């Protein structure tokens, strides 16, 4: 078996060749125009565009469509690739949603580790005041990279959960568009590699928000970063389209929308945002990209002495376009996680989900209100003062559907028969952390109290709590919960509980510490801070945050080690170790190539624990 039979290897080689082809094309055109052959900005930009196509082409994510254009038939292939070991299918283009789900998840965890490592590097720098080992340039690069790598990791993580679980929960054979599904995953590979490689050609130093004019004049790494985001954004768009169609069209008979497992509602709401908002971040970055490469001065205020400037643009326009995606994006990140909380609580409480319809509709409400609140990121930006009032009220409204979720979760716990296996612990941890994140929100939503806290570490603490409570903790809960379904074996419960016991208090210390130093007056995105802040107590806080960060990192490694071990030697889990009513637990573990041997019939409600009638059953063979 040659190395090139691995799709991932072909993708990387194809990406490099695409990059070189793009650069050569640029140089050829420049020579024909009578310009000097080499110019860094256009060469790298065109190269990056070609590199995305090159990677997709080389891995084979486009080949079925290419064959269709030539009139060739491409019958759907099932099972591992012929003549290769079964594991190789995870490294290449595969149309099975379960394989794609695992690909998303593993690539997401990989990026989580890279982004986490960067965080630990600059947390080490911040552990004491004064500058130690990171250059200012590298520091600014790392904070932005940490941000965007984590965004990619989260998008991949929710992609993994949604792709793996939604068809299973709906009793569907696969997603609506399997080829599009594979393409959706493979966009992420060149996208994240472009982002990572931007560090090696000067990086980008304006933080993850990349506000111009700074981002319009910084190093060349910006172009790779913008195009990396563009590729991952395309993945979001095609992936969410696929999920929406699957949820709307592929439910079995008798499963009305309000009879779906609640996680499908969360994915539905998230996909609505992804399908309609992602274009805006693509647009805003594309505009900066063309401002840099072609002199289109969209955001250029026209300062004397600058080149490529036309002076008709406005930097604040960028902020509107950017946050029109990037605020709803926060709800893209958290809604699936909140769905996981709602999904798992009934299983470990052994009682129905409290207020199913309210929880389902609150996800939709958050998605819709989420489109109207982007301006709270711009309270101090200098936009029209009246907008401050409008965005203040709309932002405060988000608290209402979020509150509904919390109270409904409490209602689910009340009167249950609770057990505390690792997934349940992470769900409870998620609720506690998301509570901290949620409650620190309104103080940033009302303008006067936002003014002293805006752009400080208080904001950093706030959104890390929402991201950990809304994504990381539920994601880990989901990994532990569905691990036996994916591998057929049980993870090690003791190690899982140790992971929880380390990570949860560590995260509380980290996020509350960040809020604390922010209140003292520490700004975001600074490589060094005034040691006299907080009456001189800031350094002890900073050290605690750093130690907490390392403990979280250790917990994550422990989890991965647990999974690697248990996949080999864990006890056989059986089909339904959690006694769940959900469809995916009524079929064998690990799930066979064709998930459902016979069609699924819906009998009852998804969370009717306590009733003898099952949620779903399977028609016997030949029984129509």
């Amino acid at each position: 078996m040659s190395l090139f039979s691995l799709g991932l290897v072909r993708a990387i080689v194809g990406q490099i060749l695409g990059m070189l082809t793009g650069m050569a094309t640029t140089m050829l055109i420049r020579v024909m125009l009578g310009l000097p052959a080499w110019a860094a900005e256009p060469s790298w930009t065109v190269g990056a565009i070609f590199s995305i196509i090159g990677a997709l082409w080389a891995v084979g994510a486009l080949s079925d469509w290419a064959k269709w254009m030539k009139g060739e038939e491409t019958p759907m292939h099932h099972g591992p690739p012929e003549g290769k070991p079964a594991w190789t299918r995870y490294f290449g283009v595969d149309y099975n949603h379960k394989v794609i789900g695992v690909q998303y998840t593993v690539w997401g965890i990989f990026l989580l580790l890279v982004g986490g490592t960067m965080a630990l590097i600059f947390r080490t720098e911040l552990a004491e005041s004064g500058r130690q080992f990171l250059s200012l340039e590298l520091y600014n690069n790392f904070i932005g990279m940490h941000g965007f790598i984590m965004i990619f990791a989260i998008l991949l993580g929710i992609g993994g959960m949604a792709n793996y679980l939604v068809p299973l929960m709906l009793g569907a054979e696969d997603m609506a568009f399997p080829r599009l599904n594979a393409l959706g995953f493979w966009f992420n590979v060149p996208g994240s590699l472009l982002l990572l490689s931007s560090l090696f050609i000067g990086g980008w130093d304006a933080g993850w928000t990349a506000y111009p004019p700074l981002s319009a004049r910084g190093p060349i790494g910006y172009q790779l970063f913008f195009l990396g985001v563009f590729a991952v954004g395309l993945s979001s768009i095609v992936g969410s389209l696929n999920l929406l169609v699957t949820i709307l069209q592929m439910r079995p008979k008798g499963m009305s929308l309000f009879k779906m497992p609640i996680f499908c509602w969360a994915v539905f709401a998230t996909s609505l945002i992804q399908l309609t908002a992602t274009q805006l971040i693509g647009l805003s970055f594309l505009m900066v990209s063309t401002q840099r490469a072609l002199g289109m001065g969209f955001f250029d205020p026209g300062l004397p002495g600058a080149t490529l400037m036309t002076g008709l643009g406005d930097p604040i326009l960028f902020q509107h376009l950017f946050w029109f995606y990037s605020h709803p994006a926060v709800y893209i990140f958290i809604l699936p996680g909140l769905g996981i909380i709602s999904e798992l609580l009934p299983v470990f409480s052994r009682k129905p989900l409290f207020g199913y319809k309210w929880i389902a509709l609150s996800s939709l409400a958050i998605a819709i209100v989420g489109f109207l609140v982007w301006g709270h990121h711009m309270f101090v930006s200098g936009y029209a003062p009246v907008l401050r009032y409008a965005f203040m009220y709309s932002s405060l409204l988000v608290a209402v559907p979020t509150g509904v979720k919390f109270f409904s979760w409490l209602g689910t716990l009340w009167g249950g028969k609770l057990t505390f296996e690792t997934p349940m612990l992470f769900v409870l941890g998620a609720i506690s952390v998301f509570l901290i994140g949620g409650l620190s929100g309104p103080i940033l939503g009302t303008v006067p109290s936002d003014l002293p806290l805006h752009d400080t570490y208080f904001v950093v603490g706030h959104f890390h709590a929402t991201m950990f409570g809304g994504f990381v903790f539920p994601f880990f809960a989901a990994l532990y919960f569905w691990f036996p379904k994916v591998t057929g074996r049980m993870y090690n419960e003791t190690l899982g509980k140790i992971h929880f016991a380390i990570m949860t208090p560590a995260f509380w210390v980290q996020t509350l510490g960040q809020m604390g130093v922010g209140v003292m007056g520490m700004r975001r995105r600074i490589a060094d801070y005034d040691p006299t802040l907080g009456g001189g107590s800031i350094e002890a806080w900073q050290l605690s945050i750093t130690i907490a960060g390392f403990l979280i990192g250790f917990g994550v490694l422990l989890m991965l080690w647990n999974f690697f071990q248990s996949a080999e030697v864990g006890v056989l889990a059986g089909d339904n170790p959690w006694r769940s009513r959900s469809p995916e637990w009524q079929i064998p573990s690990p799930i066979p190539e064709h998930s459902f041997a016979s069609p699924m019939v819906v009998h009852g409600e998804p969370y009717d624990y306590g009733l003898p009638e099952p949620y779903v059953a399977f028609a016997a063979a030949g029984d129509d």
Partner: protein
Amino acid sequence: MQNNTRHFAAIGVLVVIFTFVVFWILDAVLKFPLAASTQAGPIDSLIQGHLWIIAFLFSLVVVIAIYSLFLFRRREGDTEEGQYIHGNTTLEILWTALPMVVVIAFGYWSTVVLVDITQRPDNEIIVNAEGYQWGWNFSLPNSDAVTQELVLPVDTPIRMDLTSKDVLHNFWVPEFRVKQDIVPGRTTYLRFTPTIEGEYRLICSELCGLNHTGMIAPVRVVSQDEFAAFWNQDVQTASSK
């Protein structure tokens, strides 16, 4: 149900106690800098209001959750399922409507404060600040003198006229509470009235490139006489150097 009433009473008492404890902890731990402007007063009151609500809601959720974890944990040998409860529409409406009232009340309170801290007083003086990578220039209108130290008169309403030479910056003196972005190509404004004489630091809090960390300028709030003297003499010598 009799049983539940007893539990709800216990939870009610615990929530009240917890609320005070959590507020006390928040108040002790969150160390805001000195409040040195008239704007800081109403802002800090609003923040206190927020902290009370945070303490209450945090206690409410955490007390009910932890109480449930103990009360409803599965006892050994118990194989029954939980109580068959699907939901309660009255409760759902209640916990949708009450938070709605609370957030609108906070919105109204904040509106009043925001109008108050941004309104134009009669006797304000204008000071120009120009941000650049990575430093500050200060001047008065109708004066050519430029200084790198921001000197302000105490108890006088100030309007900062903020401009940038290059990229986005932000004008923030933590003790004055308020902040404002500085946008190249336009002038942004920030109003505040310093109330305590002393030395402060003006820090840029919008990432502005390599040395954003170090974009700090000294601020001195002095008596009104001293302010007049500074701009008549000190600055002339400073700028003629």
